[in-house]
């Protein structure tokens, strides 16, 4: 059985992909680390930014070992430096 998650891009990721985010379906047990790689393979142009971004699930920051659950809302937030 797969888990369905909503991925939401912020800042540079949204600008580079031209997308606010997408819905994905992953095999059960998929971690944030695997999600990072998967998103990068869908869109190679953001691979570098993805590796610098922090991931939050349901409004709470998580680390790479977090296992995705069905219905998770995943926010991907790259660092922003402008002032």
């Amino acid at each position, binding site marked *: 059985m797969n888990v369905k998650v909503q991925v939401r891009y912020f800042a540079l990721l949204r600008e580079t992909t031209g997308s606010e985010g997408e819905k994905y379906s992953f095999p059960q047990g998929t971690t944030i680390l695997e999600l990072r790689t998967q998103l990068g393979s869908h869109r190679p142009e953001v691979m570098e930014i993805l590796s*610098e971004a922090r991931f939050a699930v349901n409004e709470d920051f998580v680390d790479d070992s977090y296992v995705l659950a069905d219905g998770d809302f995943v926010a991907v937030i790259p660092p922003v*430096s*402008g*002032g």
Partner: protein
Amino acid sequence: MSQSELGKKELERYSRHLLIPEVGRGGQLSLKDGKVLLIGAGGLGSPAAVYLASAGVGPLGIVDFDRVEASNLHRQILHFDGDVGKKKTESARETLTQLNPHVQVITHDTRLHKENALSILGDYDVIIDGTDNFPTRYLVNDACVLLGKPNVYGSIFRFDGQASVFDPRGDGPCYRCLYPEPPPPGVVPSCAEGGVLGVLPGIIGVIQATEAIKIILGKGDTLTGRLLLYNALEMSFHELKLRKDPHCPLCGTNPTVTELIDYEGFCRIGESEEPAEAVASLTVVELKEKMEGERSFVLLDVRESHETEICQLTGSVLIPLGQLANRMDEVPRATPVIAYCKKGIRGEKAVRLLNEAGFTATNLEGGIIAWAEQIDPEMARY
């Protein structure tokens, strides 16, 4: 330890504050004694400074070493048209003193670095991080944690903004709990590289000013432990819970960063990705001579198309650097190529790509900005 009372003019000026129970006379006196330091008098620092000075917060310190440029004026509301070329600290002092003569403005006309940061920040109660680069962000964060001072964080990119409060006094998380390490150079563009909507820093800078005022008053709930994300195109705010990272190298249980470090090195500034082998280049003066003679070269503009709307050299062929590898067949092989960009960095990369593919390419030193400065003063710069 109120150093002062409120005079008649101040009572009138701040009367709408005095009417709010959360501020009142006592709160207004706290604001008058509250020492706030703005790191940067730019996009974020400008609106924050204007509201803090108007609200009677002072002494108000400002650190900046830059001078006002025309391209600052669409968002940096401390500076006016006639201020172009002035030191930002001076321009800021003039604006703020006119706005509210009751507020003392202290200027630090210097670059913040690890030798002066602790002594400058140490004199203030609240620090507002309005800097535009990663090394200074990490420096300000680390100095605030080491000094135990609240750091009101804000940053912006195009239509997106972030804000939070990193407050070590209440054992709150710091910037390193959010991003332990800076991104490699070149991955995350600055406002100068990526552009920014002029009103965006207005929103984020005023949020920072609000948080600074709340910290001084000791009222309300600050953004401590929360990261606020704003997008102007959607007009949306998102909030994420930010927790202290027990493994944080600075504020975690076993810190490894116990003093200020070399932040340029930490952010790998000045480190090139590949060994810096010089590529063939020519100056704008040499290019001008060539352009006046018989044109036996291709002038290749490797910037993005929106940059060409500001300025371009006559007779250029546009292929943005990111597309060059896939569009080499559009470049004539028989003629030498002169590549240019804004300041010469992308041009150099383009020349490497072209020469590897068998072209004879040369980079324009200093890019189109050097041309505008030395050859064509009428050309618009950005």
